[in-house]
């Protein structure tokens, strides 16, 4: 616990937690807004099957920015990040195993749609 009120950006302040510098907060905010504009603009271009991937990719980058900077995860105790990632891991297992089953039926659905 060092007393260094001047160096708030990298070191601890008051010994409890990392203080996020204002320029970082504002830069993250600007990036999030820019990515929102990007994801809306992306709907004017049709990339077929990539549309969903691009939208989700942009959303993931935005969520990562929120987690790393607004939620301090980058400077936090790594155990908190581990908990967060564990949650995401189980979410991924849940979604992927369910979708694996759902996608099994896609050929049948597609042929039914085409043969009508």
């Amino acid at each position, binding site marked *: 616990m060092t007393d260094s009120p001047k160096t708030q950006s990298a070191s601890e302040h008051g010994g409890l937690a990392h203080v*996020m510098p*204002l320029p970082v907060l504002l830069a993250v*905010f600007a990036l999030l807004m820019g990515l929102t504009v990007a994801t809306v603009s992306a709907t004017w271009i049709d990339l077929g099957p990539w549309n969903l991937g691009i939208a989700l990719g942009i959303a993931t980058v935005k969520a990562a920015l929120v987690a790393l900077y607004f939620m301090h995860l980058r400077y936090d105790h790594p155990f908190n990040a581990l*908990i967060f990632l564990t949650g995401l891991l189980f979410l991924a297992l849940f979604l992927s195993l369910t979708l694996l089953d759902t996608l099994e039926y896609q050929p049948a659905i597609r042929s039914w749609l085409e043969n009508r």
Partner: protein
Amino acid sequence: MIDPANGSPEPQHAGSRTAHLAHHFHTPKQQFDAGKLGMWIFLMTEILLFGGLFCAYAVYRANHPEIFFYAEQFLDKWLGAINTGVLITSSLTMAWAVRCAQLSQTRGLVTCLALTLACACGFLGIKYVEYEHKWRDGLLWASKYAPHRVRDSGFSVQDSGFPQERGTQAAEPRTLNPEPSSQKNAGIFFSIYFMMTGLHAIHVLAGMGAITWILVLAAKGRFSSRYFGPVDYVGLYWHLVDMIWIFLFPLLYLIH
């Protein structure tokens, strides 16, 4: 620690410095970290709670993409985008509030929390406009789905003075043509829409309650660089609510 009075041989339990320290913790740092750990575990359960709805979305969209492509046109992309901006702004002010609390800037803390609350009100206000619009048009969940203003082509809902989707887009034929079956079954999309945005809105309401609580305490001058845990925890919750909306927005409003 910036505590000149800290010459005591037992710094763990000495005077004003530990005024906020609950008896079952050794140090303020331990108390803070324990609270944060608990908050992150709670946030993990929240992710899994919403995970069930995201899973329902994924399964229905995989099986019936045509319903999603058809029904998306009834959502106003611009209102969704504005709400995304409002929520991101509220996240900024919340993160700023945490920073103010950490630096013992009480006035800044109160201002930031008030701005966060204002943004939350704005978000719910816009959400209300959207819900009211859908209610009027009968665009409700599957059991109540009765789109009385949708005529044969299904594009007539947009004519009531709202910032609209661009007319050209609405008139374009879709890759998956609107079939009678997608019109009939669009209620499934709206079930998912109302569940996801509704649960999210409930979380916004809960967050507003928590922020109000923090705001009252902040106005009483309870928080300082030595004790700001609750501000940080409420902030984490608020950012998670923002994060979930970041995924809901493209998944519901930007299907194309």
